[in-house]
């Protein structure tokens, strides 16, 4: 358990080092994710305990955004003075992005993948 937590931290640390050494505009954790993914490809399966540590982190992903979200209190004034352009842009653009991405993906997906999907498809 602790060994796999250490592995995850190491992936992030190496990711941070790569990001700062190369000046890539990608954050360390995203590079770390790519590293762990490559490691899993090489290993060929997910070690059971790594799955457990990963689940513990990912199943609580939502709460990790709360501290950054509270930062909204710093910008209430600025957002207030530009409430209309900012809020209309956020809502319309977010919905448009979802519609474009989902429609393209549904349209371009190979037929085989689509039939695989239906077996576990549904609502929500």
């Amino acid at each position, binding site marked *: 358990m602790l060994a796999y937590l250490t592995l995850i931290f190491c992936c992030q640390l190496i990711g941070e080092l790569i990001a700062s050494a190369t000046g890539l505009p990608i954050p360390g*954790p995203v590079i770390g994710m790519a590293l762990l*993914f490559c490691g899993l490809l090489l290993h060929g399966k997910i070690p059971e305990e790594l799955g457990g540590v990963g689940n513990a982190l990912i199943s609580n992903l939502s709460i990790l955004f709360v501290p950054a979200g509270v930062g909204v209190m710093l910008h209430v004034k600025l957002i207030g003075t530009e409430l209309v352009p900012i809020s209309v842009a*956020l809502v319309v653009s977010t919905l448009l992005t979802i519609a474009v991405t989902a429609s393209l993906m549904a349209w371009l997906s190979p037929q085989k993948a689509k039939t695989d999907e239906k077996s576990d498809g549904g609502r929500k």
Partner: protein
Amino acid sequence: MTRDFDQLWVYLSANPLLHLTLTLVAFHIGMFIYRRAGLNPLLNPVMIAVGLVVAVLTMTGTTYQSYFEGAQFVHFLLGPATVALAIPLYRQIEKIRQSGFAILVSIIAGSATASASAVAIAWVLGGTNEALVSLATKSVTAPVAMGISEQLGGLPSLTAVLVIITGILGASLGPYLLDLLRIKSWAARGLAIGTASHGIGTARAIQVNEVAGAFSGLAMGLNALATAILLPIAWYWFF
């Protein structure tokens, strides 16, 4: 009695425990409401928790800086959790191999739509330059968005806030839009939510379906990459 309480308050508010606990309790209240409402996307637990914490901080006159000293322990785990998203991604390796081309085209188109439409709408409605730059990266995961926005002359902290609001909007309104468009494929739903609303969308997608969660995490990573490369080029082209 009041004096004792004042001293206790001074002690507690200088201790990370208080704001750490506040964050956890607020989130549990958010989760309780969200579950009670049958995982209704409109009652996003992050939104409820943020609202509660902001209310408490405002009432007690606490600054964001002193709150963050405690809350940073929660914030820190975002990095390791992002790394761990490789695990659900690996579980879907077969599906990703089958539709690699579709995934790439959809994410790049989604990424361009996210930036271009937000900037265009705000520009037409008279947004200032700072707001425009900060809006351009709104669909990208916060650390990347802040970096790009700074590079283009935006406000990194405003960017972070717009990113979080976008995440909540996509996670709460997205499922309804996808139902309306009759998109049934979990892969397409997850990909769209992850492209538009990064980690907050991914957090909800994982709760709903594992395939959707994996594709959402993938879309979050690739959208960050696409925007980081393409947006600065497009920006200097237009402005």
